[in-house]
């Protein structure tokens, strides 16, 4: 098998083998998080441009930390401070960033497909850090890594996703990744956020939409909570109290899931709305492991895209190499 990633824009087009490869390559970086000295020089002299046209705290800091732990430098663009406010087009802004010669662009944008569009116009690798309601590939990968570490596998699990699934790029990346490993999905939330069309977004993957939380949790191995975007609670007209009553994950409801079930949340959590503190801080919660794994996954992504590493079975001596590396192991 040979895998060469030019960009990382979405998980949907990747095969199970390619996804496994990405998860496996994250493992060495998980170990580095435990070292007393966490900084490598692997990407010394390389620059990662972080362009967040939509606000982000966790993902931006996570990519920034990943870049600096690999020895790379970062340039930062944040929506509030950017020329976009002054009327510059997206492509002009990106071309200007690119003119400062970064080696990779990590980009978030409120419009679905914006990252693909930019990637078509750039010759450096582009990483999608979330585009509209389309995908958030690094989140999908770090979730899968967290599940694999906790449950030992990502194959054939019952995965329940709760909340505003219609507007969630995290849910889509989760479905496209875990679906390729035979996972079955149950989506649950207020009907207007969980339209039946979602059952068809990943052909070949069993997805069902249910509207009673108790039913959705029955036998779940993995529960992925999504943040309730409280600004969206006006549409549908649903009070926070009603949401809590119908869809909050509390300890009593969690008992309906499989006894070893784990709870994920991409953050930021609304404690007391979609999840109770008891569950968020309980033994089944993986929320902080997700954050730690996020740095490892993003180190792997940056490393693979910037170094151009590939997996190959070719005899090492047949690779064209500079003299100093002619010996396979030296």
């Amino acid at each position, binding site marked *: 098998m040979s895998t060469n990633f030019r960009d990382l824009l979405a998980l949907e087009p990747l095969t199970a083998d390619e996804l496994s490869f990405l998860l496996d*390559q994250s*493992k*060495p970086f998980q*170990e*580095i998080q435990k*070292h*007393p*000295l966490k*900084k*490598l*020089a*692997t*990407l010394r002299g390389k620059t990662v441009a972080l362009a967040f046209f939509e606000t982000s705290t966790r993902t931006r800091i996570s990519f920034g930390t990943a870049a600096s732990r690999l020895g790379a430098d970062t340039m930062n663009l944040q929506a509030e401070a950017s020329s976009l406010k002054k009327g510059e087009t997206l492509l002009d802004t990106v071309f200007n960033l690119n003119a400062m010669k970064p080696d990779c662009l990590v980009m978030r944008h409120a419009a679905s497909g914006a990252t693909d569009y930019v990637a078509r116009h750039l010759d450096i690798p582009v990483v999608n850090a979330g585009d509209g309601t389309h995908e958030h590939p690094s989140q999908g990968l770090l979730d899968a890594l967290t599940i694999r570490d906790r449950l030992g596998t990502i194959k054939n699990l019952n995965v329940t996703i709760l909340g505003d699934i219609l507007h969630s790029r995290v849910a889509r990346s989760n479905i496209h990744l875990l679906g390729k490993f035979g996972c079955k999905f149950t989506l649950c939330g207020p009907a207007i956020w969980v339209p039946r069309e979602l059952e068809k977004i990943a052909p070949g993957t069993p997805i069902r939409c249910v509207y009673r939380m108790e039913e959705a949790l029955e036998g779940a191995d993995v529960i992925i909570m999504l943040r309730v975007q409280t600004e969206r609670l006006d549409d549908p007209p649903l009070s926070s109290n009603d949401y809590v009553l119908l869809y909050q994950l509390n300890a009593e409801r969690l008992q309906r899931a499989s006894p070893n079930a784990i709870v994920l949340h991409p953050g930021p959590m609304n404690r007391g709305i979609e999840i109770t503190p008891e569950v968020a801080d309980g033994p089944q919660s993986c929320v902080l492991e997700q954050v730690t794994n996020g740095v490892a996954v993003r180190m*792997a992504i940056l*490393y693979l895209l910037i*170094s*151009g*590493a*590939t*997996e*190959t079975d*070719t*005899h*090492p*001596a*047949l*690779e064209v*190499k*500079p*003299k*100093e*590396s*002619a*010996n*396979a*192991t*030296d």
Partner: protein
Amino acid sequence: MRIVEKSQLMSAPEIDRTLQRLAHEIVEKSGGTKNLALIGIVRRGVPLAQRIAQAMRGIDGVEVPVGVLDITLYRDDLSKVAPMAVLRSSDIPFGVDNMDLVLIDDVLYTGRTIRAAMNGLFDLGRPKRVSLCVLIDRGHREMPIEAQFIGRHVQTSDTEIIEVRLREIDKEERVVLVDRVE
């Protein structure tokens, strides 16, 4: 390009005897096995380290800890050898502070791997001493690095390649000298 085998440098029993000798030399020179640990460099240094540790069990009756180090992230030629840059896991399940570490690899050539390995080790702490043990030293150094424990010196030209084939990885056991032919 193809690979042509020129000669066999070591047979399986020769490899075995050499590793036995290297185990004795390391124990002798270290004054026992106290604070001693072996670090196998991925890939073929790993089975070699495990076998040397096993031989030491026969000498001192002591279990010498063995760690695994993948030096890919510490290389200085990242972009030039992309196909080799796939990561494997390091696993050093003990603290390296104040330890007497012996790096184990199959072939010592330019010395760049060992330079990278030392960077990797020092990210984990401050060992008391680091020495180097290789099955084959083939010369052509580009770094001021020498091995303290050497299985065999082999004179080579720099188009030649030494392949150490071990049963754990290659399903056969011998050391061969090969050449690249257009």
